[in-house]
């Protein structure tokens, strides 16, 4: 099978998966005892909604249609870049239609915030993991190797929310570091004063952004460090046994050069695989991090959508499931395609790159 056909087939499957994912969410929502009219109107769950009012609301948000029609309408909207209108806080004008929070408008900043946490966390993670794994792999069984293994194990066995709240408890002693919150990189419309400005500036700009995200990044890195160090260390030990490493050494390359120029490059592949496979786990960790540090990203948004006393906000939930699905499926697809480009054997049916990695998902 050639590469183009492979990419086409995998992309088509990914789209089918996304359709299944979102339809399942629609269907599951339909199964819950949630009353969409109640979500829109709010108020005392004990008092019934008048039938005429319910009829107007149901018609306005489209839930009087059969489920498949609702889904097809939603898909049409998504294709045009419209994720619908949130049900919570919706106001209905019988003549002019509905007014409320646009899901698309709410998702964009939230997605960017979540990406800030994850990408920064990944960079910090690699900055921690690569030196530790390189040192451990060059001296397997040394005290450094064993000690870091135990410490990282404690890191992965502590719930991320406990790590987060522990760091915040420490922050009460060290007031110079911000407890969390989020500062945008670009100047927002109205200026938000920061409790912890860098050199007295208001809360925006790259320095403030990174400074406020420091504790979230640390929390993220602490959780995943153990998995990454283990995989990278094992791969490095195997790679260091390869003949070409002996050749490099025979040519007189220094140990550092052997490790960082020759060995690490070839040991990064399993890391790529694992990043794609652990993406689902990262979403859960992200949710806890956003809650603890008060970052209004996708995790917070989803809890908000689920937190209604009267019911869940379906347009919001479906949009979040869609975005997370795109992130996870897209990342796996990207890694698969990258592999297929590097190694054409991958594009043959029946090959599973994942058999390369055996290790636990936390």
């Amino acid at each position: 099978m050639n590469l183009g056909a492979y990419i086409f087939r995998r992309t088509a499957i990914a789209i089918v998966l996304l359709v299944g994912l979102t339809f399942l969410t629609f269907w599951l929502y339909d199964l819950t005892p949630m009353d969409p009219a109640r979500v829109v109107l709010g108020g005392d769950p004990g008092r019934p909604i008048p039938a005429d009012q319910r009829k107007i609301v149901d018609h306005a948000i489209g839930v009087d249609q059969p489920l498949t029609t609702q889904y097809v309408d939603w898909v049409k909207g998504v294709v045009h870049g419209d994720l619908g209108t949130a049900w919570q806080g919706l106001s209905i004008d019988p003549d002019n239609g509905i007014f409320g929070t646009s899901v698309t408008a709410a998702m964009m900043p939230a997605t960017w915030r979540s990406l800030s946490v994850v990408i920064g966390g990944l960079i910090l993670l690699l900055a921690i993991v690569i030196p530790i794994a390189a040192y451990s792999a060059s001296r397997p069984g040394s005290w450094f190797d064993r000690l870091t293994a135990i410490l990282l194990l404690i890191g992965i066995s502590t719930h991320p929310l406990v790590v987060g709240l522990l760091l915040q408890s420490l922050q009460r002693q060290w007031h110079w570091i911000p407890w969390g919150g989020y500062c945008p990189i670009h100047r927002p419309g109205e200026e938000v004063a920061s409790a912890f400005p860098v050199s007295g500036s208001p809360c925006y700009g790259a320095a403030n952004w990174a400074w406020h995200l420091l504790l979230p990044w640390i929390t993220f890195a602490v959780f995943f460090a153990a998995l990454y160090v283990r995989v990278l260390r094992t791969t490095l030990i195997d790679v260091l046994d390869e003949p070409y490493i002996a050749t490099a050494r025979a040519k007189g390359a220094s140990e550092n050069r052997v490790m960082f120029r020759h060995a690490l490059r070839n040991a990064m592949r399993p890391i790529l695989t694992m990043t794609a496979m652990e993406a689902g786990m990262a979403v859960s960790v992200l949710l806890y991090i956003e809650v603890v540090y008060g970052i209004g990203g996708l995790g917070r948004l989803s809890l908000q959508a689920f937190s209604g006393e009267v019911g869940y906000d379906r347009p919001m939930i479906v949009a979040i499931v869609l975005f997370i699905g795109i992130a996870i499926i897209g990342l796996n697809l990207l890694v698969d395609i990258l592999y297929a480009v590097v190694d054409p054997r991958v594009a043959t049916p029946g090959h599973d790159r994942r058999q390369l990695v055996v290790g636990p998902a936390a």
Partner: protein
Amino acid sequence: MVAVPASSRDRSGSRLLWSRFKRDRLAVASGVFLALLVAAIVVGPPIAERVLGHGPNDLFPYAVDTYLKPVGPLSRVPDLNTSVSNDEYDLGTAPPGTPKTLLILGGDGPLGRDMFERLLVGGRISLEVAFGASLLAVLIGLVLGGLAGFLGGMVDGAIGRLTDFIMAFPLLLLLILLGNTVGNRITFVTLHGALQPGVFSLILLIGIFAWFYPARIVRAEVSALKQREFVESARMVGAGEWRILRTHIFPHVMPVLLAYSSFLVASVILIEAGLSFLNVGIRLPTASWGTLLTNAWGTYRNPQPYDPQRMSIWVTVFPTLAILVTAVAWTLFGEGLRRALAPRSR
């Protein structure tokens, strides 16, 4: 025919595994700890109740101060489940002559219940969920992964895409959404009183969405094993497909899967703790380690970093440590097994 000496016959299979496993002292220690823990939570609660003279749900109004901060470990507090004073503001002192009772690990929070007994009872719930969900996930993974690896072709492709599908679904969101649907209907399925209410629904929901990783491992193992010579020779002498799976392939898959389940148990313990923190979806009516943790750290609507005035540090330390130590022990145990299985890996 040459008689095989007993010693060399014994050094095969599980014996060999054990001799390698016991060299890893940390893993052995973890195994012993876990065995003791399971024994403690199975037989412990009734014994503790008998010896200490109070139960895990008894309230001790005098075990907290005016800020509702509970007492620390090894405190003797007046054994009163309700205040006898008629003055509702008089919470400071118990009437003289009240019998005292011992709280070994102190109070559990503003209600002043016995932390030690609640840890025991909560541990039972947490481990029931962890064991049950892991078992379910591993069973589904074994069947689906085994089918995919052994049959290959279309079946493999279909199961592979199903795995991608489950993998892409955000587990936490699903648990929240389903908690209100399926959860309510099966909360009171207790398998004739064998499980606490709510445990079964958690097992079902976590298990159904955690099988994709074991399935991948089984699939990789099986598809590698089925090309080995001993499988081919078994097929040559006329063994059926089912017999090959049962006697030649599964015995090799099981140890790997066992090591993985140990990691899985550790992660389900963490997932359960997180669900209690989110306080959405499934709510366990009884104490679990997760709910004890929320006593200390709050819930997502109200996360609370440690506050020395309001909360005794022990309330924070004990549940956190219980979860941490148990999760570390399961991971070390699994690591030891994994290393014993693949002695070449360092």
